């Protein structure tokens, strides 16, 4: 929630005017929203999607959806929270559409075997990139964006247990790839 409030500070000082303009269908209001939230939305999409191009497409789809449905934002929650949910849903939809998840298990195995063989220490950015799409999405949505397992389960069409186990597996891999494992 703290993160959500902080993100709303991305809005210009005349946030109410911008929101009113957007709700009235004024392109200037929509553009001001785009400029304010372009980077956090793209960052979220990029952390979930496999490629930068996919992330840019999802960024575009997210703001198109915002333009279409800003009238439905009732201002009883943070604006960033509302926008973020649209972005996360669109990014997860993109993953489903590309059927990346169908090959997640295989991808995990290949990556895990390769890393265990080489004993390379990776930096966090590279390690995160190495995770399967599903695992990376769960880690990012839970640990960085602050979604609960129940919320992630709804967005992914899975169970909370699935989200929990994905998170634990992801941390096990990150720990190994970052060279943080210690002998018990």
């Amino acid at each position, binding site marked *: 929630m703290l993160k959500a409030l902080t993100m709303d500070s991305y809005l210009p000082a005349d946030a109410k005017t911008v929101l009113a303009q957007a709700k009235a269908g004024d392109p200037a209001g929509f553009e001001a929203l785009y400029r304010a939230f372009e980077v956090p939305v793209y960052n979220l999409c990029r952390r979930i999607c496999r490629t930068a191009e996919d992330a840019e497409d999802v960024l575009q789809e997210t703001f*198109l959806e915002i333009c*279409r449905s800003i009238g439905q934002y009732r201002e009883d929650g943070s604006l960033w929270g509302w926008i973020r949910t649209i972005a996360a849903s669109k990014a997860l939809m993109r993953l489903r559409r590309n059927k990346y998840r169908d090959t997640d298990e295989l991808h995990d195995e290949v990556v895990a075997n390769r890393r265990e063989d080489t004993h390379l220490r990776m930096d966090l950015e590279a390690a995160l990139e190495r995770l399967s799409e599903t695992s990376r999405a769960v880690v990012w949505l839970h640990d960085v964006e602050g979604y609960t397992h129940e919320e992630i389960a709804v967005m992914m069409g899975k169970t909370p247990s699935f989200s929990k186990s994905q998170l634990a597996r992801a941390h096990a891999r*990150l*720990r190994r790839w970052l060279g943080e494992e210690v002998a018990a």
Partner: protein
Amino acid sequence: MSHLTLEQLVALREPGAEPGTQAAREHLNECGGCRAEFERLHQRVARLKSLPSLRPTRDRWPAVRARFESERRARRLRRAGLVGLAAAASVALAVASKRVYQPIPVATTAELSETMARSRALEAAIDRYHPESRVLDDHTARIAQELEDRIAAVDRQLEITDLMDANRRQAQELNLWRERVGLLDALVDVHLTRASNAGL
């Protein structure tokens, strides 16, 4: 008790008590190894949160705007079709019932329908050029953008007229639709000029 699994440590960060959490917490208090692992988990999450923000390489706003305006035009087109039908129906009803206390000026209604039809035809002509996928030079793009802005402003005014009483609405609507047709005409010219310059 053996060391906590990573799944248990991850679960310990969740708010609320889950089965097994109490025992796990007690173990954590007593086991230095698990506390160190728990601390590393916290640090890893903190590092994830502090990763730099990634930025898009291209400005996607022009594409978002073009698609949204195109959708809005299509909605307006559909709405014009429905309003046109409704206007024709209301005239037919008024004539049939012969109980009109405030006569609707039939000429104005017909003119309104005609203007809306003209607007639809111009929108269809513009859509055939697929303006959102065309590359325009700066000057042409600026003129097209300005015309689109003015059309959007007229559309907003048309939405406001929905709240007016019937007679005032009809008078206002006709003027606004005429203005809209004029702007669309100019926009068609812009695209025609661009197409002929490009040899299309």
